[in-house]
């Protein structure tokens, strides 16, 4: 097996919601590639189709047409490639970060990170060590045993980043990760993502509608009415 050139390859991806007269083409004929370690932004107004593109790449929204290849595995080719365990691919190759932090409210910060490791068959002991290290590296060592409700927005989003990073995924998908944060915290989160992209050699695709947040990104795509513009 040769060197994998792209972490994400999307070719002529089209997503149409619904059928007939009510059909909505949310993404039309999108093509993009992201290399490992690259930090890429999808910038566009609300309703332009950014989330649709992200979730199609993220194996939770079946593309209507086109191809998606994640870390060398063809996952969609005119719909899902049959016989794939999408959940398994999600937990091994992908990490997700959302607008709302989506932490599990009844788990502590540490447990929120551990759960991602444990469902990926790591023992509790290993998971505890790895999750603690990760959170400490994100300056959350003093928050390990706090529930999400006790964390600030920035802290919660950093825990979510730790969870997304936990299994060292090749691809990290972030949907408006800064939308719920103030500018300073937003910029910190973006800087953190940039740092992680480099350190872990992960491809990071970030959706945002806020152009102030995309400083220092390797590449920026604009999404307009379902069309991708470089």
């Amino acid at each position: 097996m040769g060197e994998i050139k792209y972490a994400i390859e999307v070719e002529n991806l089209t997503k149409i919601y619904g059928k007939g007269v009510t059909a909505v083409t949310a993404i039309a004929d999108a093509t993009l590639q992201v290399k490992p370690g690259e930090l890429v932004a999808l910038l566009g107004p609300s309703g332009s189709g950014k989330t649709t593109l992200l979730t199609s790449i993220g194996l939770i929204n079946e593309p209507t047409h086109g191809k998606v290849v994640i870390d060398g595995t063809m996952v969609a080719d005119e719909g899902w490639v049959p016989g794939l365990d999408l959940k398994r691919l999600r937990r091994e190759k992908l990490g997700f970060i959302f607008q709302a932090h989506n932490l599990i409210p009844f788990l502590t910060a540490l447990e929120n990170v551990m759960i991602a490791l444990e469902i990926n068959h790591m023992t509790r002991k290993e998971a505890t060590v790895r999750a603690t290290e990760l959170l400490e590296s994100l300056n959350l060592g003093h928050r390990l045993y706090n529930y999400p409700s006790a964390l600030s927005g920035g802290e919660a989003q950093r825990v979510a980043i730790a969870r997304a990073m936990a299994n060292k995924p090749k691809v990290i998908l972030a949907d408006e990760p800064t939308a719920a944060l103030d500018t300073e915290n937003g910029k910190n989160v973006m800087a953190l993502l940039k740092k992680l992209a480099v350190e872990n050699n992960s491809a990071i695709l970030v959706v945002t509608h806020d152009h102030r947040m995309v400083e220092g990104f390797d590449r920026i795509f604009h999404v307009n009415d379902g069309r991708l513009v470089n």
Partner: protein
Amino acid sequence: MNLAIRDIRYHRGRFILTTIGLGLLLGVVISMGGIYRGLSADALAVLESTRADIWVVQQDTNGPFAESSRIPEDSKYRIKSVPGVAEASPLSFQTIQIERQGKPFRFFLIGYDLNGLGGPSEILAGRDIRQKHYEMVVGKSMKMGIGEKIHLGLHDYTIVGITGKVVSSGGDAVAYVSLADAQDIQFKKDNDAIRNDRERIGDNLAGIRILSPVQTKYLKQNIAAISESTHTVNTVVARLMPGANLHEVQERISRWNHFHPISAEEQIRIMTKGMIEKARMQIGLFRVILLVISAVIISLIIYTSTIDKIKVIATLKLIGAQNRVIIGMILQQSLLMGVIAYFIGYGLILLTYEKFPRRIVLEAFDLQVLFVIVIVISMGSSFVGIRKALKVEPAEALGG
């Protein structure tokens, strides 16, 4: 990591309240089972403490407990003479209601032959009845002391002994007197009534012209004697000799007119089938209803807590959690709720069952069966929640 326990710990208020409520419900279910067992035990208590092999009662009746039965006391001699019979004793049963401390008080009075069967099976305090008259042994549950007196019929009876917790088939306390006393209490008329009866017999006989005065006088004496006789009992119980054939003895007694010999086994069947079968069905129905209510409560709580967790479930699916993780979380919560509630109910009854007005008998078998039922109900009740959870799309984790 156990998500079920962590969720419960975080939302303890709702879980604890629901589980306590369910626990109370299951406590009622357990106590109802215990009440039924208690009814059975009570119904058979006198029967079993008598330890007779055959109960001879009036023909065409299933006495003496299920129906009233009257046979002459002297039939004991005939029964005793049947080959295979070791002992035969007459017994008299009656329910008596007296006034005690301004309240009606009911008890079951057993008259027995002091040298025969059917007396108190144990004496906890005092002694057995020794005098032929006016002595009494009462059950502990009558809460009376030795030396106290009860006025019954025409006489006072002194308590000389206290016996154990035997109760009548209706759950009333039991007291013992000599057979003769019991017959007096049951049948003996006061002097006014006797005088009235004699006059009426005399008047009736005087109306019959063909009788000579001597005949009239003779008849009057005899009829009065019969009508004033108290030598009637409710049953004669017999114990067989070792190795005697129960069937043959029954066969022989039933060939005589006027008697129905019932074996102890048949007597138990009459009592359980006839007298407590309805109670069993009634209690059984209530228990089923309460269990259905428990199932509905568990389903509802599990379903609503699943609805509250839609976003959590979607997030878990999104980060790639296997279905078993999600099913496990819901199923375990349901099981925990059922099992904890079961032990709350059990503990509650264990602490209180002796204070119930009727006897509660907790049988290990009943408790085990109920435990299994609770497990099955908990698993079944989680079904709606699980079905809902499995339908959640990972995309639902996105957005506000």
